[in-house]
């Protein structure tokens, strides 16, 4: 992600430079509104036609003391005229509203990168809280960066003087000053933000005025001040045409569930228990009452999944959402779903483990748990989403498969996808794939476990249907009749039938898309939220002429039928995972391929450079 600048016909006032890609990080205290600033800057960039990638990063504690290192909140935006896969590794620009923000983030800033610091935030008190003895802005310790110290707080207060707001309130507007300044620096349109301020604060006109002024003050300061010799431009990217919005993974997932239930013409029932980072899905769906969405906040995760299964038994789309520890508790009930063969979608928004682990950090270490975490031979389809927006299609597909095959389906996302946002090409409901549902109603020839020849699914019968009264349960069922059976051969037959049914889902899997050539020296296989980092890394090494391709798996069980063949066409196979190596175990066991792992267990996404570096090292071996 090199920062290529080239001088263009400079305006008399300021020189203008073209960039193809900029990574900027806004950092300040939790109270400074950095998340909001980052999101607005993202919207401005998206509206300017750039492709964007974002990474919010807030403290684990609910409210860490103001000004402390623990209280630092950051938001990183990567905007470009080229395709964007990630929020970017190291920022080209760091906006630091206080010393703590500087201390926590300066290490990531690229050498020669731009540091924008708010002089007003660097008072003695804050310096002390951040553990600085001197003032880093003055002691020359930042020589390797382009440092711009701007009294954002001071200028904001001045701009709002006559509004007779308390200094506290007025000071809070400084983030808009910062936003305005950065908007100018990168030639972003501020109109969208002005509009946003209008709606957001419509109930408090004085805040509309205050924030508007702060924003403009920042923008004009950039324009007029001598400080900045150059103003940058980032041309629009080539992006698929259509209507876009920003979605986080959790929102996209919720939308996917509602859309799928709507398409199937069934009520959506969510049985869930709050847990970070999955709770927002519950919050989202709780707001969709006009869609007939029923959200049940259960007493625990077990009741959450059990209630969802009960709803499925009644003919609804039963869904449960949680994260690692909660999923562990649900496994016994998920196994019941495997046995009674009812549709059920289990969403695991993965976080750092084991145990309570790192609740607010991301990880993808629950693949084993999804595939193998139940007693007995207990197969079920497992899907994973690759990007925040992809959570929509993944959730939609999970529901479709659960219904078609009458099976619980596990959908894996993670904290990075859940809270990360990206522009999402809004689909038309009418264009989404059909989800046919056929509740059995005719009594003749009805048997609870008589399977559909194509899908091996058993019939779905709604209680209330006359003449089809029947019982289901977790004890082994007799083939066809569904009566309790302890017969040895029957158990083997049913165990194999359950396995065959899940294996049959492979017929749903399209040919595996390969980024790059069909064959080559190295194939990078990934799943889940590592998609962006891997794609960027692969592009990078391919740009250097390396014969490297990428395969990213949506289906983790069953695996794509063509995967074995693809693996064999490459000299080496690299499997980067944010865990100690889980997919790699499956690939090695299934295809006996000597795949190599790249494992990062830091609660953070891969940096593109980490993957690219590993690829190059492997190619040299």
């Amino acid at each position, binding site marked *: 992600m090199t920062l290529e600048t080239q001088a263009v016909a400079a305006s008399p006032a300021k020189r203008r430079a073209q960039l193809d890609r900029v990574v900027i990080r806004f950092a300040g205290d939790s109270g400074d509104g950095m998340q909001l600033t980052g999101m607005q800057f993202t919207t401005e960039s998206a509206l300017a036609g750039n492709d964007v990638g974002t990474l919010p990063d807030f403290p684990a504690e609910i409210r860490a003391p103001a000004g402390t290192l623990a209280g630092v909140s950051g938001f990183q935006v990567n905007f470009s005229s080229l395709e964007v896969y990630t929020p970017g590794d190291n920022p080209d620009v760091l906006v630091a509203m206080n010393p703590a923000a500087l201390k926590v983030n300066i290490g990531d800033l690229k050498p020669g990168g731009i540091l924008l610091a708010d002089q007003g935030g660097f008072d003695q008190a804050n310096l002390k809280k951040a553990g600085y003895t001197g003032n880093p802005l003055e002691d020359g310790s930042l020589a390797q960066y382009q440092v711009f110290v701007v009294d954002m707080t001071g200028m904001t207060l001045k701009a709002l003087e006559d509004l007779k707001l308390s200094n506290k309130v007025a000071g809070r507007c400084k983030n808009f000053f910062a936003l305005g300044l950065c908007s100018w620096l990168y030639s972003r349109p501020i109109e969208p933000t002005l509009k946003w301020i209008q709606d957001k604060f419509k109930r408090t006109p004085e805040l509309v005025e205050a924030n508007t002024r702060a924003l403009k003050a920042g923008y004009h300061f950039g324009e007029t001040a001598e400080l900045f010799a150059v103003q940058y431009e980032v041309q629009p990217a080539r992006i698929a045409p*259509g209507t876009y919005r920003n979605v986080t993974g959790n929102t996209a997932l919720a939308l996917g569930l509602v859309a799928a239930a709507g398409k199937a013409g069934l009520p959506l029932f969510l049985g869930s228990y709050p847990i970070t980072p999955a709770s927002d899905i519950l919050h989202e769906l709780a707001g969709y009452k*006009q869609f007939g969405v029923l959200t049940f906040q259960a007493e625990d995760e077990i*009741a959450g999944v059990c209630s969802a299964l009960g709803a499925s038994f009644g003919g609804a789309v039963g869904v449960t959402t949680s994260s690692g520890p909660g999923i562990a508790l649900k496994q016994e009930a998920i196994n019941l779903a495997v046995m009674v063969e009812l549709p059920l979608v289990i969403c695991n928004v993965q976080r750092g483990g084991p145990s309570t682990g790192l609740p607010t950090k991301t990880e993808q270490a629950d693949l084993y748990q999804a595939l193998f975490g139940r007693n007995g031979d207990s197969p079920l389809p497992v899907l994973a989403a690759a990007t925040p927006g992809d959570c929509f299609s993944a959730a939609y597909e999970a529901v479709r498969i659960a219904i078609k095959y009458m099976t619980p389906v596990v959908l894996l996302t993670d904290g990075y996808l859940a809270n990360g946002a990206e522009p999402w090409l809004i689909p038309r409901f009418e264009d989404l794939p059909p989800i046919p549902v056929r509740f059995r109603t005719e009594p003749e020839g009805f048997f609870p476990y008589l399977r559909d020849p194509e899908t091996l699914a058993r019939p779905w019968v709604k209680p209330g249907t006359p003449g089809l009264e029947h019982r289901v349960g977790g004890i082994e069922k007799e083939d066809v009749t569904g009566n309790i059976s302890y017969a040895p051969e029957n158990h083997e037959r049913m165990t194999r039938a359950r396995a065959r049914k899940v294996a049959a889902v492979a017929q749903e899997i399209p040919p595996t898309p390969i980024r790059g050539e069909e064959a080559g020296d190295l194939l990078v296989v990934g799943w889940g939220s590592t998609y962006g980092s891997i794609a960027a890394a692969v592009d990078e090494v391919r740009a250097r002429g390396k014969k490297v391709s990428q395969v990213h798996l949506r289906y983790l069980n069953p695996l794509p039928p063509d995967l074995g063949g693809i693996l064999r066409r490459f000299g080496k196979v690299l499997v980067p995972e944010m865990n100690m190596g889980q997919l790699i175990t499956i690939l090695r066991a299934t295809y006996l391929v000597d795949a190599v792992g790249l494992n990062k267990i830091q609660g953070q996404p891969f940096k593109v450079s980490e993957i690219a570096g590993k690829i190059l090292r492997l190619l040299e071996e």
Partner: protein
Amino acid sequence: MAEAAVEAGAPRLTRKDFVSDQDVRWCPGCGDYSILAQVQKVMPELGLPREKFVFISGIGCSSRFPYYMNTYGFHGIHGRAPAIATGLKISRPDLSVWVITGDGDGLSIGGNHLIHALRRNVGLKILLFNNRIYGLTKGQYSPTSELGKVTKSTPVGSVDYPFNPIAVAMGVDATFVARSIDVEARHLQDMLRRAYAHPGGAFIEILQNCNIFNDGAWEPLTDKATKADTVLLLEHGKPLIFGKNRDKGIRLASSGRLQVVSLGDGVSEGDILVHDETNRPLAYMLAHLENPTPIGVFHASIRPTYEEAMHRQLETARQKLGPGDVNALFRRGETWVVE
């Protein structure tokens, strides 16, 4: 969303209609047989089509119950029946959902789901078969086993102070709380009818004999010779009198505690407490009365059911915002167009 009654002209249902084709596998002499018989006797009278009934259970001898009812049924996992049933009842208020559980299933592993279902007043009819033992696992003590009970897992006697199921239900503000006995056919039928009629969640503790692992647990209450003196029949508005010659009664002492008194010698019927189902504290006191042991409806009161309240919210939302438009939902918030 009340449960739809059988449309006029529908064939009258009989007991047979509720008997499934599975042979019953309880031990000969098990109290569960009688309970099954009473349920099968009462169901046809309730005026609801058979297909509208669902029986959901956990794991245990008692929890085999649904297999023997020719209705919709779900044999769940240990202790989770109330949770499964809650999901079904919320999404299908039109169904009559019955939960069958045991003292282990419902009060040991499943205790939390039970009390949450009761406090939420989900419209479930919960029958807890209390045989004071783990039957299916061949005889360990349960949360209702008496102190000192010798079982496979307590060779020198249990040291667990037991739950009082009625008191537990009162402690979580259940809206219908009753007790009956497996062999008291008519009384049990009445309680089943009352539970069905109750507009909300209903809890019935059914004293049940496990003749294999805890035989005679309730004998004093079922033995023809003694029961008149050991059982107190609760009837709303009637004085709490019992005894072979109806010569004993319950009085509320000034201390605010209940007293067992003999009628005559200064105590007249007027001094005897009159049962009031709506009086929670009274129900709580009666719950702790052991000698005599009360059966009948301890408490009944009305509160909106969970599923009603929930669906009302959906209705209001639809009225305020119109039926959900997915495309509009997709477009919520800031959007922009790329040509």
